[in-house]
C-alpha cells in the first residue's frame, strides 16, 4: 500500500525510553511502510536501542535520559539534515498508533499541501479512552486552546506530520511532556496551514501504565509559564 514517494520522503521520528517490550514490532511495522525510521533512544537501560536497530531503525542514542521533548528535538535536528526529506512524522514508541493512520496523514499533507497534520483520537468513535483519561485529555485540550489559540480537539497525541517548512518553526525547549503544547504553540505562531486527522489510539495495558495523570497537567502549566 506504500506509495514510493511517501516511503522515501517521509521520515519517522520515534522517541524511545525503555520500550524493549514493545519497540521491536512497532519498528518492524513502520519499516514496512517507511524507508526511514529514526528512533531516538533517550538513555534506555533495557536494551531498547539494540532491539530497535535489529528491527531496522536508525537509532540515535542520548547519553542520558532527557525527556520525550528533548528526544523529539534531537530527531528533528537529525532528519532536517537529510537529503530528499519532505516531511517528518512523529510516532510514539509504545505501539498506540496505527501505521496506516500515519500514511493517510502524510498523504493528506502532501496532496493538500497542509504544513502540519495533527492526529486526533476524538474526531471519530474508534478510540475508547476511559472516563478519567477523557477528563485529563479534555483539560489538556482546553489548556492548549487558551495557551496557543489553536482549536485542536486532541492536544497530546503523539502522531503528527510536519512539513520541512513547519519544522523550521519548531524548536522544542521543553524536555518533558510539555513539548506537546509547546509544538502546537510554535505551529500556531508560524501561521502555517494545519489540519487535524482522525486517528485511533490503541489502549493496551502497556500504554495505559505509561499514560499521563491529572497532576501532569499542573506540571505542564508551570513548565510553560516558567521558562
Amino acid at each position, binding site marked *: 500500500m506504500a506509495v514510493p514517494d511517501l516511503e522515501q520522503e517521509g521520515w519517522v521520528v520515534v522517541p524511545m525510553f525503555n520500550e524493549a517490550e514493545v519497540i521491536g514490532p512497532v519498528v518492524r511495522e513502520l519499516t514496512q511502510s517507511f524507508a526511514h525510521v529514526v528512533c*531516538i533512544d533517550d538513555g534506555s537501560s533495557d536494551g531498547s536501542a539494540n532491539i530497535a536497530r535489529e528491527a531496522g531503525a*536508525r537509532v*540515535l*542514542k*542520548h*547519553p*542520558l535520559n*532527557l525527556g520525550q521533548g*528533548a528526544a523529539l*528535538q*534531537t530527531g528533528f*535536528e*537529525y532528519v532536517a539534515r537529510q537529503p530528499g526529506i519532505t516531511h517528518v512524522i512523529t510516532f510514539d514508541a509504545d505501539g498506540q498508533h496505527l501505521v496506516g493512520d500515519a500514511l493517510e496523514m502524510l498523504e493528506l499533507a502532501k496532496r493538500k499541501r497542509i504544513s502540519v497534520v495533527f492526529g486526533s483520537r476524538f474526531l471519530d468513535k474508534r478510540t475508547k479512552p476511559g472516563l478519567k483519561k477523557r477528563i485529563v485529555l479534555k483539560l489538556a485540550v482546553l489548556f492548549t486552546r487558551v495557551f496557543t489559540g489553536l482549536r485542536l480537539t486532541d492536544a497530546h497525541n503523539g502522531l503528527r506530520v510536519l512539513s520541512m517548512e513547519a519544522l523550521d518553526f519548531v524548536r522544542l*525547549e521543553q*524536555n518533558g511532556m510539555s513539548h506537546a503544547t509547546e509544538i502546537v504553540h510554535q505551529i500556531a505562531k508560524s501561521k502555517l496551514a494545519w489540519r487535524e486527522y482522525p486517528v485511533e489510539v490503541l489502549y493496551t495495558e502497556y500504554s495505559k501504565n505509561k499514560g499521563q495523570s491529572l497532576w501532569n497537567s499542573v506540571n505542564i502549566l508551570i513548565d510553560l*509559564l*516558567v*521558562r
Partner: protein
Amino acid sequence: MISQWILAIALILVGVYLLKARRSASQQAIRRLFIIVALVAGFFAVLFPNYTTAVASLLGIGRGTDLLLYAFVVFALVYVVHQYRRQLWQEKVTTDLARALTLAEAEIEDLRNSRKL
C-alpha cells in the same frame, strides 16, 4: 503601613524574577550588590541590635526581630527562585551538550555506513 508596601513589592519582584528573568550582567550585578548590602546590614544589626528595632518602627513594624524575620523570608524566597532558574539553565546546557554529542555520533556512524556501501 510602609512595611506592607515594601514586602508586597518585594514578593511581586520575586515573582517577576521567577517568570521573566534572563541571564544578564545587570542581574548578576544586582545580585552581588544585594549580598553586600545584606552583609553590611547584618554586621550593623549585630553590633547595634537596638537599631533594628528603631528601623523596624520607622517602617511600621513592631520589633526588630520581626524586621529580621521578614527580611529573612524574602531573602530565602529569592534564593529558592534563583536556584530554580539556575537549575533550568543547567538542564538546558546539559540537553544541548547531550544533543550535540548524539548528533555528532550519528554523523560519524552515517559516514561509516556510507563508506561501507
